[in-house]
């Protein structure tokens, strides 16, 4: 018997037990891994990514080169969003907005970049409307473009998961051109993000933990 049918059997077994238990009204105690605290789990790592030489469309309608957009000396924060995303993306965008605001004068030293993973739906107008919804200030740019370009970029950052509903909750920080990227998986709070940004700004180099 191959592995596949074994797996199938064990799953059937689970279902049958479930039904039996249900029939006797016994509580079925299958639990998810313990959630002992409320704080969201985040993972921080550092990595080097080779970004593709692609063109994108900025929310102001300008056709731009990704590499050029990412070439200036500012610290770079990158996330991936789409404007019809109702649950996760608004929260990520909310954190960007709030971080930008809370940074005050330091905000000018940071380039926020949100890349659409639904580029056929997100045109400059939808992106501009979206930016306004979050009161995004100059220094926060939204990008769309050809579907292939968006996928190439997601793959370069190792965030492509096949379809947009499968998108990863992930955020990237680069202190300055040439530096490694800090990759955050999970939900990073505004305060946490600001701490990280200020550390980078202070040392002008990525910190390591």
């Amino acid at each position, binding site marked *: 018997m191959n592995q596949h049918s074994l797996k199938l059997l064990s799953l059937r077994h689970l279902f049958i037990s479930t039904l039996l238990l249900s029939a006797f009204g016994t509580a079925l105690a299958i639990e998810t*891994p313990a959630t002992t605290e409320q704080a*969201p789990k985040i993972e921080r790592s550092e990595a080097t990514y080779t970004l593709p030489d692609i063109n994108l469309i900025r929310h102001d309608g300008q056709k731009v080169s990704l590499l050029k957009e990412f070439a200036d000396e500012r610290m770079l924060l990158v996330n991936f969003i789409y404007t019809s995303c109702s649950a996760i993306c608004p929260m990520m965008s909310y954190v960007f907005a709030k971080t930008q605001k809370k940074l005050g004068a330091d905000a000018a030293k940071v380039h926020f970049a949100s890349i659409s993973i639904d580029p056929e739906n997100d*045109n400059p107008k939808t992106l501009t409307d979206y930016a306004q919804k979050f009161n995004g200030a100059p220094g926060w740019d939204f990008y769309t473009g*050809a579907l292939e370009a968006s996928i190439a970029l997601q793959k370069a950052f190792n965030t492509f998961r096949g379809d947009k509903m499968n998108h990863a909750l992930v955020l990237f920080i680069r202190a300055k051109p040439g530096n490694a990227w800090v990759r955050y998986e999970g939900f990073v709070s505004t305060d946490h993000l600001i701490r990280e940004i200020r550390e980078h700004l202070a040392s002008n180099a990525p910190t390591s933990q």
Partner: protein
Amino acid sequence: MREPHDRYATTLHVHNLSFLKSKSIQVAMISLTLLNASSVLAANVEDIEAGRRIYQEGILSSGQSLVGQRSGPGEVEGKIAACINCHRKSGMGSLEGNIEIPPVTGRFLFATEDRPIALLDARAAKNITRPRASYSEEALAKSIREGIKVDGSPMDSLMPRYALNDQDLKALSAYLHQLSIELSPGVKEDSLKIATIIAPGVDIKKKTVMLEMMRAAFNQRNASQQNISGRMRSPIDAIPHTLRNWQLIVWELQGTPDTWEAQLSEFNRKDPVFAVISGLSNDTWAPIDQFCEHEQLPCVLPSTRLPATSPGYYSLYFSKGVMLEAEVLSKHFQDLANKAPKRLVQIYRKDNVSQSAAQSLTQALKGQQITIEDRIVADQSNSDLTRLFAGLKPTDALMLWLNPVDLITLSKAAPKKLAPNIYASAIMIDGQSQNIPELWHAKLQLIYPYELGQKRQTNTNNLTNWLKTWQLPNLDPIFQSEVFFNLLLLTDLTSQMLDNLYRDYLIERAEDMLSWGANVSAYPHLSLAPGQRFASKGAYIARFNKDGTLSPETPWLVP
């Protein structure tokens, strides 16, 4: 007992899917919850409406905005804080990335029956939620205000805490108590009624092949659903009421479009269906869209040249039809910059589709320095035909919103040396290049909202093989690929919805999973999301090769 949840992340082959394509899916979230009986509180209509406004719009009964607090991202307010954003209209929740948003339906929270709720999402293996007591009013208050579940554990930090006052809490509770509490109309103990709609004036051959395809798929599916032996063939069988037979109901319309809505309402009143899939019309789909909205009935991906301009919640379309073609041509002219034409002459007939197409193009070209002239095909006399082609200059562009018959007539009358760039609608020739007379081949460019070449062939191979198996003709490959896509989608949707047969949930799952399955359609890429109603969003400008096939002249243009 504590188990690593990966153990249940088991790949399984689901037998009832294999009739059209073989597919491995992963059981993702299966939550089996033992439900304690709890009495549904009698709630008055006002409370439910106030609750709906909190849930859907984020507006409190005081008229103020709903405010939610999250430990991480902080405060959310108003529409963005409304429950519907994550838990969706049906209350069935969703799965976004690795974030599981649990259901909050009446049945899930306050179940009064001893029946498990099972959820399935094919995108990823997730966890199995634990059984728990049903929510009392106090427990609900504690969860919403403090983020503490009925079992005393904390909720995920992504769920905001809402400081609702007693009145708002009562209203929200009343709303949740009735949310998705009953299966939708068209769902019977052992059957699921699905309709399709056929408008008058359609090609009888197309209508016939569509119905033959649907009946074949329904028969095939039902044959593999019958569980005579009583043996379980798939874990999904363990969940009661997931073996419903599909029943196809054909709604054939008569008369003019303004009478369709009433006809459809009458059909649905006499014999309600769960959803409408596919459908065929050469004319406007707008009245049918309105009907679907009034009846809150999902109308999934009809084959129409002219969908509603602003679709309702319940209608999903492959594309914007000829309106998309108009927008793509406008985008093409924009890209041509100083090579764009100085004047555009549109030739069309005075029917709903062609007129709307021409109007859309006029609208789309606003802001570009292009003069537009409309020329309507009249009696097709010699003088009429001469008039249509009179005075055209090399700096003009000619747009033909014409069906194949008119294209043939016009090709004979067109001047041998027609100067301008000529464009034609691919949708109006059913996307079939052989419908364009050869005389036009050298000069014509098609606005082509479908895939081309090898990719197209690969995507539609499944259809070709399936038609062969059923000894059905492939008369109209694009149209038939649309029907086929729907049949697969319905299979996937109903398989994953299990017994949660709510119309709103069907729309939500279609929004989430349209791009997930294999693309067996003639479109390069189909994708929806909450609020999106047109699945394919672009087109090529294509030219004829010497052998009569088409090659893209431009990249895929998305207006």
